[in-house]
């Protein structure tokens, strides 16, 4: 299905942005190679270990793909809001709320067949994340409260609310560990690769990305949402209810981040642990940025970042380089992309 790229010039610009992203990744790896060399290691060896760690066998592949899933969802969340010119920094909190709703659905709703139980858990995760994001959207639309600030603050509320819950009210009896009980088997996603814990959530993530692309480029809702993102004034003069779209965009964005949490629960962890996310929500910002807010781009960006993170352990074992080196690589990719974005922006400004 040709979703994102309907016509000639758009194909060209897609090729252009893709090659820019690849160039940024290449440059980041090159500069990091210099750093590795300075640290006294062989860059080639280090990168080989990294690649082996991420793709060396089916277990590594499974880990990489499992790690890709939440990043696709949080990346989509940030990208979707950004298409409406909103910066959702709250994917982390929305993810926790989504996870909370799914784990509750998985534990406390029983007696349902999997075919109903799984979609229900997913849907509730979407709804919980959506409410959390939508609340920030509501504040933005009706009170003009900056969504960047409100989503950051809502992160803390969500994370520590969940923390409170797993410390007592919904802790697994007898309550030695800060975690919930396991969700029922009927709420668990089927496993694709037995060796690793890769479930079919990765397939769902890719499907959702395609759906998001479809919504953005092939529906009136998406066209109008992007119009609001590009020019609120024109949108208003075209009869688009701008405030409603701001609310809606944040709600859907939050829902997508909520799905990240839901999939973690029903796809791999099966229970809600205190502070279980290693910052998927924040990595989502970088993923959306590298993917240039394009849902299909987000898939690849999420895959790259997941591979870097998973491969980093192998690299550390083989060469003794710290895993945090991949954070440096990620940072540099973003930095180089930013250079390109700023250049385009300057050119556009010069023209007008």
């Amino acid at each position, binding site marked *: 299905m040709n979703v994102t790229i309907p016509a000639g010039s*758009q194909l060209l610009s897609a090729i252009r942005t893709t090659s820019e992203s690849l160039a940024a990744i290449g440059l980041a790896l090159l500069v990091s190679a210099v750093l590795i060399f300075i640290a006294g290691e062989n860059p080639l060896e280090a990168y080989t270990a990294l690649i082996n760690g991420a793709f060396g066998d089916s277990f590594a592949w499974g880990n990489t793909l499992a790690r890709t899933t939440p990043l696709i969802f949080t990346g989509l969340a940030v990208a979707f809001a950004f298409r409406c010119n909103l910066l959702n920094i709250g994917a982390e909190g929305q993810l926790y709320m989504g996870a909370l709703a799914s784990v509750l659905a998985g534990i406390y709703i029983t007696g349902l067949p999997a075919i109903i139980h799984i979609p229900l858990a997913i849907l509730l995760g979407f709804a919980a994340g959506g409410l959390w994001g939508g609340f920030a959207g509501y504040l933005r639309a009706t009170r003009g409260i900056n969504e960047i600030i409100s989503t950051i603050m809502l992160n803390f509320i969500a994370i520590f609310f969940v923390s409170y819950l797993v410390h007592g009210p919904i802790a697994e009896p007898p309550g030695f560990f800060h975690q919930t009980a396991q969700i029922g088997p009927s709420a668990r996603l089927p496993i694709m690769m037995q060796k690793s814990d890769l479930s079919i959530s990765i397939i769902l993530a890719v499907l959702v990305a395609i759906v998001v692309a479809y919504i953005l480029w092939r*529906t009136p809702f998406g066209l109008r949402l992007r119009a609001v993102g590009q*020019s609120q*004034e*024109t949108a208003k003069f075209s*009869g688009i209810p701008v405030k409603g779209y701001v609310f809606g965009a944040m709600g859907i964005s939050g829902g997508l981040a909520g799905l990240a949490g839901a999939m973690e629960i029903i796809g791999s962890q099966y229970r809600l642990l205190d502070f279980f996310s290693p910052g998927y929500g924040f990595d989502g910002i970088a993923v959306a940025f590298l993917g240039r807010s394009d849902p299909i781009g987000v898939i690849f960006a999420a895959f790259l970042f997941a591979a870097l993170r998973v491969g980093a352990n192998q690299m550390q074992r083989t060469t003794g380089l710290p895993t945090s080196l991949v954070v440096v690589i990620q940072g540099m990719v973003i930095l180089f992309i930013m250079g390109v974005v700023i250049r385009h922006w300057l050119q556009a400004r010069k023209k007008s």
Partner: protein
Amino acid sequence: MSHLQMSNITKNFPGVIANDEISLTVEEGEIHALLGENGSGKTTLMNALYGIYRPDSGKILIDHQEIKFESPSDAIKCGIGMVHQHFMLVPPLTVTENVILGISPESFQWNPILDRKTAEQKIENLASKHGLEIMPRSKIWQLPVGAQQRVEILKALYRNAEILILDEPTAVLTPQEVEDLFKVLRSLAKSGKSVVFISHKLNEVMEISDNITVLRNGRLEGAVSVADTSAKQLAEMMVGRQIASPRKSVGQRGDEVLEARNIKVKDDRDLTAVNEVSFSLSAGEILGVAGVDGNGQKELAEAIAGVRPLESGELKISGVPGSGPAKFTSIGHVTEDRHQTGMVKAFSLSENFALKMCHREPYGDWKKLNINAMREKTLEAISAFDIKTPGPDVAISTLSGGNQQKLVMAKELSMKPKLFLAAQPTRGLDVGAAEYVHSRLLEARDQGMAILLLSTELEEVLSLSDRIIVMFEGKIMGTLNAEEASREKVGLMMAGTSFEDIGES
């Protein structure tokens, strides 16, 4: 003795002559108004004086010395100060800090410690001398617009400005603040400083200035002394002297489409912009709204289009009190500022074309866009309106202004609205594109559309309209039928004379 003399200044921008051999003389202690419509070249001329642009040819003399500025700092050294329309102030800093920002007066020269005391003293002296009420220690963001403007004036005076340029200084002020500003300007002139006052508001110009230079379309239209002129003559000079071209055709009036009764609308500054206005508009008719820019036309159009709330009064479209989203597809609206409100620059032509109607056939339904139909309809519009473009998929920002306007017009007309609002539809267009827009408006009228044409170009209003209303300070000065409308009458009404008073003269 002439304080400032600019002679034969010419400045070209790609595709436009912004200033064509313009001369301007300002005496010492004079308030000189530079009058003209938007886009007539006033600001360009003053930017040339202030060193922001370098003129292509022409001379600038200050106290009979020829000077050439490389940058505004050169101009400032020569005693020229400018208060821009958009203030150049740093909001979190205090008045004093803003005033001394970027300069190092003698006492500071080798002293790394900022001597606020001395500066404050000097500011207070300057302020009290010219009646500029200001607290040197207040922060800019806490000040109302009028006070911020006083800070800008102080900034110029602090730098020893002898010639002070004010670019549309009253555009952002309330009537009371305008009064205060005028007092200050008079005091400045009295102390021997020259003031250049850029404006397009006739009554203000008549009130404050000694002499007036009028620009039109980048050319010098004339220079007159305020004693020898009238608001009416100035209005005529601003809009041009050419004989109005004969009306192209007469419309066939049908049912009433728009009825406005006692409507009151506020502008962005929360001041009344449209004051108790009533009129009606029928199918197959072009109702022209004439007036000098900024007399409530924009707010009127926006209120009818449903993007600006009515304070009071009633608007009926085809007899139905109009509001809600349905309005947007029954009213075509070519907005005054097409870049900000008429199009999404980053969108393709076809996306722009379909935006307003994208949930309707043939562009799609609520769940799906019909990309092919969008492109086809856009292609049709491209050929019907002779739009110069590589195709419907390029971004609209790549088109020239005339072609953008054609697309906006094609889009709005394609909805087959009953009511069509055309606000400054030919502003910034070349003659060919403007002609084209005019013929399309007449065609739409002949097809039975009710058209409200808001324009500051008197020529345009006179040649297209079946009836004309003239707005002045938010009120309708009178309604004229096309036959009885003459340049003189409309010009008088634009300057604030009511229709009844003209009858007597």
